[in-house]
């Protein structure tokens, strides 16, 4: 079964599959697939970029939702704690956050292992570190979006939930969350596009994403303009595809609002 799926995916590969862009137009050139060119390496980079963004999205959304819940709670201390989180991670450059998470986790794990008596060098997974850093940044921005969405939902909705005898978390799940998603969606769409661009930073800590793969190709082949141009083009295409896709999602979310 998995063999069938992998065969299906490689057949539908938009870059290096049988009907892929690079295989159709790039054969014989620098971006040919296989040993002759850099097509398959770049296609791998595209896959890594998309995987990283898609893996970060749910984590960032969940953390962002929790932070937004904390930021709009009635408890002062909880609001303060959430405020510190968003202030720090919205104020730091994404690149610096990435380095702090990457080296900080390495030092932390090393210290923990050293206390157990293990004394070797620890290399942390770049994908995981990138995901953690991007999720932290994404969540601090998305919490702001969700917070303003929370404020747009009138109190009466909570009171109606109470009047119906729903428990608090059922009110949240059945009444508030569907409205929250609809209100927050445009802001979250923007944040997704920003996340897609921010994945390029992980190339600095050595993860083989689009920019790193094209960078290697540029250095080896001495065709920097061509390859970095391709990198920009690929990011552009990803952004276009996601804005078309998110347009569908937005229409789907708005379907209950009726035609105006």
């Amino acid at each position, binding site marked *: 079964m998995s063999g069938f799926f992998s065969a299906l995916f490689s057949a539908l590969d938009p870059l290096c599959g049988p009907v892929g862009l690079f295989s159709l137009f790039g054969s014989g050139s620098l971006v040919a697939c296989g040993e002759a060119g850099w097509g398959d390496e770049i296609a791998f980079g595209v896959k890594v970029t998309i995987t990283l963004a898609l893996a970060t999205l749910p984590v960032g959304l969940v953390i962002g939702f929790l932070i937004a819940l904390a930021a709009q709670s009635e408890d002062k201390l909880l609001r*303060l704690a959430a405020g510190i989180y968003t202030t720090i991670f919205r104020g730091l450059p994404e690149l610096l956050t990435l380095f702090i998470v990457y080296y900080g986790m390495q030092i932390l794990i090393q210290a923990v292992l050293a206390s157990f008596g293990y004394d070797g060098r620890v290399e942390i997974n770049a994908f995981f570190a990138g995901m953690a850093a991007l999720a932290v940044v994404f969540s601090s921005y998305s919490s702001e979006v969700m917070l303003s969405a929370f404020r747009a939902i009138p109190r009466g909705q909570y009171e109606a939930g109470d009047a119906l005898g729903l428990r608090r978390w059922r009110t949240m799940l059945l009444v508030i969350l569907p409205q929250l998603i609809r209100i927050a969606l445009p802001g979250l769409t923007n944040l997704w596009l920003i996340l897609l661009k921010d994945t390029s930073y992980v190339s600095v800590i050595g993860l083989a994403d689009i920019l790193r793969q094209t960078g290697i190709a540029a250095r080896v082949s001495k065709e920097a303009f061509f390859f970095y141009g391709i990198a920009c083009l690929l990011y552009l295409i990803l952004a276009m595809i996601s804005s078309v896709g998110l347009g569908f999602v937005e229409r789907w979310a708005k379907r209950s609002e009726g035609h105006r």
Partner: protein
Amino acid sequence: MSYVRELIPPRAPPALLEKPLAPARIAGIVVLVVWAALAIALAFMMINGWDEDKFQRYGPRYLHGLWTTISLVGLSVILGAVLSAPIAFARMSRNKALNAIAYAYVYVFRSTPLLAQLFLIYYGLGSFRPQLESVGLWWFFREAWYCGLFSLTLNTAAYQAEILRGAIESVPRGQHEGAAALGLSKRNAFRKVILPQALIVALRPYGNEIVLLIKGSAVVAIVTVYDLMGETRYAFSRTFDYQSYLWAAIFYLAIVEALRHLWAFIEARLTRHLKR
């Protein structure tokens, strides 16, 4: 005739209920304790790892990096503002070709990463060295600092053009008509009526854009510009001391927070006639 002879004596208020410890409060305390622990660990790390020698060696470099970052961002914000005006007007013009070009510019620069743009300009244009030398532009594209400035300017121009366009279009139609009814020429109407109102709308997004640019400017460190991030990377590569990143974090947070508060103050000051 009957009336009440004796008033009912006032009753004592109900006893205050002991407020139970809400889960929200517990969560707040726990998270705050975590933050405090992190802050103490940070302070401990800095005091414990304090090294006069490193401070002497890297302190001035950090300040120099800070100055590089600030000058880079300041210059690119100003140059970007200059460049954004024609783009915004092209975007609002009725000429289809002009509109399409401006739209394409904005779309491309807003949906590709700044890092890729920087690489394209610094490494990519570097491969056209003979051509650039023949036009006499090589001195510009040879320097990483100029390339950083160039790409930051192009990038922020795209964002600022959208801010400017949105702000100008947010001014209601009646304002144009009112100015026309007063006999103001188009130019004067724009200068004296439309633009002041538009810039007030644009104030907050401009502040956000400057903050984003300060954060974005850290990428120039990767093409060997010694800005704050570059000096940090240099210090870390020499000392392998994790503190170098923490100092950079403190510097960046300080700049961004100072700018945010300054901007909030400016905005409150400039919009005080709009408060009701």
